[in-house]
């Protein structure tokens, strides 16, 4: 279980990194924390000819706070978020979700951007970012572009990122002071990938009422007008709206996965009434 041979680069500018990636003609891979790519390479499930280490790129390590949003660099680690070293646009939610990702050793190295690009449906940021209406800032040979987080994940382990592009940062709108949000995942034990994830965001001043169902076989299901759904769930009973949402997420009624997602939705809805708004 040792990696196949590869060329290692650690460019110092984003431009150089993009050039190296383009030169690799699809055979190169950007390397951030390496917490998924590393094991995949060791198991030879991934055999890139070159690795382009992007952790030295200043653009990816910055955090910028604006009036309405905060932009977090893609190479910021889960641990940096967990430790409160970057501003939290969601009033502490990012920090608590970060603390629930895998184990501290993974969080020390694993990055926000790496997790989003890896696009594991059972991971956390891939589900939380659409819920928060975040925007992905991407750079490639043709320049920069923005991708709405809702459109980011295309399929399991596939994002909207083009082959020669690098995810630079994630821009997350600040929640209003009285916004309510919740995030709940069902895990076999702390640190494991989620078996069912659900989240809600109610931010009345911004006219937002989102629901999210994640940890399915594909991209998370994002619902932008979820007021009635939340109302139904808050009654403590899953009804027709919940059922419709679960079916739209590709879950088949009467299956284990359906049941767990239903429970996750009920619990996430109940958490809207608590201060913290997330649990596992």
């Amino acid at each position: 279980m040792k990696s196949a041979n590869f060329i290692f680069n650690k460019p110092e500018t984003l431009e150089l990194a993009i050039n190296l990636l383009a030169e690799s003609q699809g055979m190169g891979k950007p390397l951030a924390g390496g917490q998924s790519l590393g094991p995949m390479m060791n198991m030879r499930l991934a055999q890139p000819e070159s690795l382009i280490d992007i952790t030295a790129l200043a653009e990816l390590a910055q955090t910028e706070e604006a009036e309405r949003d905060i932009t977090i660099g893609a190479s910021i680690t889960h641990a940096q978020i967990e430790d409160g070293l970057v501003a939290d646009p969601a009033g502490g939610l990012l920090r608590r979700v970060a603390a629930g990702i895998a184990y501290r050793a993974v969080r020390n190295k694993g990055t926000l951007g790496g997790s989003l690009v890896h696009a594991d449906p059972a991971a956390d940021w891939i589900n939380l970012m659409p819920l928060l209406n975040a925007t992905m800032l991407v750079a490639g040979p043709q320049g920069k572009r923005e991708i709405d987080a809702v459109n980011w994940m295309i399929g399991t382990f596939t994002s909207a990122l083009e082959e020669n592009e690098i995810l630079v940062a994630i821009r997350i709108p600040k929640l209003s002071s009285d916004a309510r949000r919740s995030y709940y995942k069902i895990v076999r034990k702390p640190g494991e990938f989620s078996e069912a994830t659900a989240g809600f965001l109610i931010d009345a001043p911004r006219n937002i009422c989102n629901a999210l169902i994640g940890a399915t076989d594909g991209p998370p299901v994002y619902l932008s007008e979820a007021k009635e759904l939340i109302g139904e769930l808050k009654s403590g009973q899953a009804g027709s709206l919940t059922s419709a949402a679960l079916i739209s997420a590709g879950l088949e009624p009467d299956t284990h996965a359906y049941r767990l997602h239903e429970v996750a939705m009920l619990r996430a809805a109940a958490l809207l009434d608590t201060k913290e708004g997330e649990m596992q």
Partner: protein
Amino acid sequence: MTNTLTMNQQGIGASVQRKEDERFLKGQGQFVANLRLHGMQDVAFVRSPIAHGFITHIEKPENHLQNIFTLEDLTGVKPIVANSGLPGFKSSEQYVLANKKVRQVGEMIAMCLAPTRAQAEDIASQVFVDFDEIPAVVDMRQARAKDSALVHEHWGDNIFLETYVGADLGPVFDKLRQNAPIQVNRKLRTARQSMAPMEGRGCVAYWDKREAQLVLYTAAQMPHINRTGLAQCLGLNEGQVRVISPDVGGGFGYKGILLAEEVCVAWLAMRTKQPIRWIEDRREQLTANANCREHDYDITAYADADGRLLAIDCEAMVDSGAYSSYPFSACLEAAQVGSILPGPYKMDHYRCRTWSVATNKPPILPYRGVARTGVCYAIESVMDDIARMAGLEPYEVRLRNLVQAHEMPYDNITKKHFDSGDYPESVRRAVKAIDLDAWRARQLSIQPDGKKIGIGLSVFCEQGAHGTSVYHGWGIPMVPGREPAGVKLTPDGVLEIRVGVHSHGQGMETTLAQIASQVLGLPLDSIRVTLGDTGTTPYSTGTWGSRSIVMAGSAVGQACKILRTRLLKIAAWILKEELETVQWKGQAAVGKNASVELKELATIWYLKPQLLPADVDTQGLEVITTYQAQRDTGTFSYACHAVAVSVDPADGKIELLDYVIIEDGGVLINPMIVDGQVIGGAAQGIGTALYEEMRYSQDGQPLASTLADYMLPGATEIPAIRIEHMETPAPYTEFGQKGIGESGAIGPPAAIANAVNDALSSLGARVDELPISPFVVLEAIKQSELKKMKVIPS
């Protein structure tokens, strides 16, 4: 016995910190993978990607032909064979590289050599093997069907061995079926597991030209047995082989085996005359070596209306995998089921039929507790059912059926000789320690979070350190006999202990030194313990079966006593006294008027022999002796586990709210180390109960290849386990100690399953398999709901 032990702050009973901690806690252990030998090369194995099929062609890359080895290259290497002498046992031959046929995913087909493991894997990835696939035998129940594919064609079926205890009791059981007031039946399954020591397997071999000897470093529990087996496979005499097992990061049975990898690596080292290394990686461990715990029970218990056990009737199967492992064989586990299923209970009749079934899975190995973990789960499940039928608390049924203290020693229905103890007292203490009444009260109140509370217990005894009289009956390649130990004084009064057992976390460098300290009074830092090297330690069957502290510990004690007698003789001469008036106190021989220290006696013996008498005892200050218990039928430690759980009917999750273990391991050499053993074992038992499971696809593919898929319990899954000790001395061992190394892993699945079923009983649901994953819980609830719907008349 305890009353003869004088106080010694570092002796028997002292919870001293482990001598090993100095290096282990600083990351300075010397494991196989830490070895760096000049010119060392790595191998990677080409392993079968299919479970069952014939090899039709092996294509090797042209530029690496000289670095790729298949079975035809290994001329003179014999297959690994481990036969049992039990009648009807069918023999398997495990070629160290596949011989025309593969019988499990991960079976080795070719060995690739390169300067580094990565390069060796590069070569391995260029070896292509064509197969004629045949249907895989994956399920042991289906393996017994007439039309099943055959793992070993010439057998005619897939049964390594069938045993039948009480085969002649048909009429008795006919009558019981008619008359017994309580009759309960359970069909139980336990998952296949992959033992997961922190350190995997690994070995390094080289040819020592000076000694004309093959040296094999390997992470092994039984280096002497590996040497014997290796010499046989390679056609060497044992003098030409030295096996060194350095620091080992966990054994549990995973390293109690002669490995095909060891034979291959040793052969290659002899051929190339270079050091060769293989270090198992976690994927190899999971996909090629999920090798334990898979049992199937159909158990019926008969009791009278008061819950008194009348009889047990059982059919049990063990999935033994594709080959018979050396030295424990493919049938030890199932045959053990037949002999230990009655547990610590009394009964009038007992019948048990077992099958060791061959499948296209890794060969079974005895994992910590061996069959006891499954057996305890089976019998304790029906004991709870009897309690329900009799309207009694489960503990009450145990108290009525356990062997009582005044009946000890007790020969049970399968002729197991329970040596000592108060089994019912362990149950009473557990009930008190867990505070059963408080949990029962809480159970009746509705939990605000909708969770259900359950309380469960299990009680069992563990035979350890059983010897010749027990094992010769199995007829496996290794029968343990008298256990040796060597002790030697240096001129400056340091005691060197050499034993053929090994330590892989048990702390025996400390506990064996404590025993020596008890006898000779030396401080622990003046005692060195050498283990794991066939070149320097006396021949032993090694560490397995909870035997080392009993067998090697007693042997060390006896050797030290012999040494002490010799020292006293020298001291009497030096002190000019009769031997009778000189006594050993602390670390000195004390006469009527004067005394002489051990260190001085050692110095005199080695460096001032002019002071010794002409008729001196000629045997010197080195003793090798062997130990056998007064009875070799084994020590019986026992324990009662009690656990309170919550079960969430919404998501199926189980939480362990409190966990109590009442343990009797006889006289404890180092209670702190025993606690560590018990807790570590219990953690593994919790893994068996709730998490660990290697599933296979229909074509025999293992479905977990990383620890993300094969779920092990971690720190967050293990509750703060509370342990209370009883210390009933073993009547037949040197210091009253009992084997206790496996105990912790035996009780948890039974106790936890009983607690979960207690919690689910209000929902009318029951789980009958391990591990009890959330899926299993939800499925059980769903089935009970379906059943209820059917009962309602339309």
